């Protein structure tokens, strides 16, 4: 290997600039002031080159101390950074808590915790919320963040009906009572309000900042977006003037997006990324076995794999058929085939949401009971009922194959159609032309689906609708949780759907990485605490 071929570009560049700066220094005493400018320019170049070289090298073999850069591999990439208009959880994941901050935030157990507001009170009638803001807050551009910004942000959201504005149900008004106090009024109680404010609708933006929201982001969080490449990567650098307690521990976080699972796994194995979330469970074994280098962990989440039954369908309107299907599905077997990390789920509310109860005993796996129910409805293995299962191809063909195999045992011939997402949207979601469908409903606090007779489930239970309305109006969390739990039990008993499992996201990281959130990391991914020591 010869150094003269120019292959070692950075070495050559360093040498050249060193020579230049030495020459410049030799000349300075004898020159007029413009010589200083030359010297300054050369020095600036030398520093920039030095920094660039230093940064590119720091990912490698620094012996002690935390690395300056952590590279994280994620899956779903945002197409632009416009958090007001662009839908998709990929944006929430990367921007909320890192670049933008809300009035309140959620912790790893999906509970509401202070953020820009250090505390809050709720009036006894549940109609007025008073938020006390932290003092001396600033945006990353230096602008002061106070109650006026909070009021403007939420009014702007509601006036323009930006994305997610609908979750501020019953919003009436918001006003600043002083520089650090905000009062939000509702027309009727909304027990979901605080949690809703941990998402997009609670974000506080700088009204005076002038930036292109598609490619830039100006917020008050611990990180700045220094580089954004659509569908490829985002580079976050620490906000040097961050006001709060979540000061970034790592100066640069690079987030790379891998649509292909194998490419992602290769990137982790080769050290291109230090963290991968999610990692396909079947591909994680090579990292599980290498405990000295990697940690592999599954986190809790709110992804519910819902096998929806069309409650107004020709055959699925018959509750006996729906009950039979629920009894015939061996959830443990499906979970085992996926690697055993997912959790069984017997109803519409996952463990991290309010109103959760273990409902797996409502319809336990029982083939005899399932066959008896089918016989009552007039079907058997010799006289099978044909049902169509249509779902989007993002979920793979395996689940359809397994369900067909399991339901065959009770006399249901499952005709599985795995289609493009747009076809699914048209057939199932819009036209409700389906018997069974399969969707990963990953949203948290989404019980409203079961209280909305116009949702694609066609599930219409006045009792559930009433319970949900009362839960929303509840002014006390325990009361809300109890009402939701009752409603969830009814939905489960009515066999409005089957919940195949609660998908738990598996993440894998190099053992040098600390502070990476495991729970709920596909919806919000606060990175300030992440460090990497090579």
């Amino acid at each position, binding site marked *: 290997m010869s150094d003269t071929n120019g292959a070692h570009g950075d070495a050559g560049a360093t040498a050249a600039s060193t020579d230049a700066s030495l020459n410049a220094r030799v000349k300075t005493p004898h020159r007029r002031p413009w010589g200083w400018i030359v010297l300054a320019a050369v020095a600036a170049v030398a520093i920039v080159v030095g920094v660039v070289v230093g940064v590119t090298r720091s990912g490698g073999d620094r012996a002690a101390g935390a690395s300056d850069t952590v590279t994280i591999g994620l899956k779903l990439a945002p197409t632009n950074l416009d958090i007001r208009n662009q839908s998709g959880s990929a944006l929430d994941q990367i921007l909320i808590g890192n670049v933008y901050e809300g009035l309140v935030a959620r912790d790893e157990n999906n509970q509401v915790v202070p953020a820009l507001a250090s505390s809050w009170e709720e009036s006894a009638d549940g109609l007025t919320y008073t938020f006390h803001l932290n003092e001396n807050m600033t945006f990353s551009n230096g602008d002061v963040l106070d109650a006026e910004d909070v009021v403007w942000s939420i009014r702007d959201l509601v006036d323009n009906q930006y994305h997610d504005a609908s979750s501020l149900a019953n919003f009436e008004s918001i006003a600043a009572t002083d520089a650090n106090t905000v009062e939000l009024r509702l027309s009727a109680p909304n027990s979901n309000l605080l949690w809703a404010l941990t998402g997009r609708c609670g974000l506080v933006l700088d009204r005076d900042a002038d930036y292109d929201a598609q490619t830039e982001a100006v917020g008050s969080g611990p990180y700045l977006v220094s580089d954004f490449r659509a569908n490829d990567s985002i580079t976050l650098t620490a906000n040097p003037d961050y006001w709060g307690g979540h000061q970034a521990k790592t100066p640069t976080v690079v987030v790379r997006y891998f649509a292909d*699972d*194998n490419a992602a796994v290769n990137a982790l194995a080769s050290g291109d990324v230090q963290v991968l979330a999610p990692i396909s469970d*079947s591909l994680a074994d090579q990292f599980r076995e290498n405990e000295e280098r990697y940690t592999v962990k599954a986190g809790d989440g709110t992804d519910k794999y819902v096998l929806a039954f069309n409650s107004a369908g020709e055959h699925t309107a018959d509750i006996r058929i729906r009950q039979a299907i629920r009894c015939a599905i061996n959830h443990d*077997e499906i*979970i085992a*085939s996926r690697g055993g990390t997912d959790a069984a789920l017997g109803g519409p509310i996952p463990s991290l949401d309010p109103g959760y109860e273990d409902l797996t005993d409502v319809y336990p796996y029982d083939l005899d009971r399932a066959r008896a129910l089918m016989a009552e409805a007039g079907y058997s293995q010799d006289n099978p009922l044909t049902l169509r299962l249509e779902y989007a191809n993002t979920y*793979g063909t395996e689940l359809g*194959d397994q369900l067909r195999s399991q339901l065959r045992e009770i006399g249901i011939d499952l005709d*599985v*159609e795995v289609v493009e997402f747009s076809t699914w949207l048209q057939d199932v979601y819009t036209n409700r032309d389906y018997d069974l469908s399969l969707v990963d409903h990953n949203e948290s606090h989404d019980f409203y689906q079961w209280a909305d007779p116009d949702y694609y489930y066609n599930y219409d239970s006045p009792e559930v609708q009433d319970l949900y309305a009362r839960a929303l109006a509840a002014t006390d969390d325990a009361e809300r949780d109890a009402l939701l739990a009752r409603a969830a039990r009814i939905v489960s008993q009515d066999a409005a759907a089957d919940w195949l499992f609660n998908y738990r996201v598996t993440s894998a990281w190099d053992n040098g990485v600390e502070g990476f959130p495991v729970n709920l990391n596909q919806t919000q991914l606060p990175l300030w605490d992440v460090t990497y020591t090579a």
Partner: protein
Amino acid sequence: MMARFGAIVSSLWRRAGGRFSLVVLGLWVLVSLVSLVWTPQPLWRTDGYDVWAAPSAEHWLGTDGTGADIVSWLMAGSRTDLLIVILTVLFAGALGLLLIAAMTARNSVLANTSVVAVDALISVPTILIALILAVPLGASVAVIVVACGFGYGLNLARVARPQALLVARSAYVESAVSNGASGVRVLFGHIVPNILPVLLVQLSLSAGTAVLAESGLTYLGVGVPSGTPSWGHSLATTVRFITVYPLTVLWPGLVVTVVVVALNLFGDALRDAVDPVGNPALRRVAVEETEA
């Protein structure tokens, strides 16, 4: 006629490539037929507790990600692929002959337009046709058959045209036409027998490519629908895990490779076997037939 057939088969059998392809293709047909009545495990059976199992007495080649038996799915897949290959070859052959007839027509307007049309259409990628067809049809066997049949039919016509044109403009065809032979009669009585070797090679190449296309299109989600066994289905469901369970990808990959090689060798061997110049046995039969 039987004697001719026997002479061709025995000539095929004497060639190494021909023998290999005859054995593989024979097995293919046999396995397809057997899979209609028997597979080692019921096709629909899955077992979540026994996924990605290594080969065993129960599962000869192991199981896939749903715990389904790989051998059974490959066996059942062979009949889907056989059906696709037969339909594609028939479609390509019919389209090819139609275009050859048009391109060698005595009507020069028809002949010239069809030449230009074939040259233009041949530049449309088969995969693009398949993706467009999948919009109305969804994932289905018809997408593969029509897209491949269309592409290979055009190709066949273009490759066979020079030879077909020589025949069509030959003195004996001129005399047949002046004796009142119809266009159809000329096509099947004179042109087809003369370009038969080219046709056979092209169609067997098409058959091999159709097997590959089935795998590729099914992987893209526009080929064989989910739940229908096919080699492409077996590949598509396992290829994501190639780094972890390489064996499960190897089996369908091996089957596809062996069959495609066999189809290509079959075409070559068949061309030699049906060509009286290369096959003395065939000349003998021809002499005997004329004497009889």
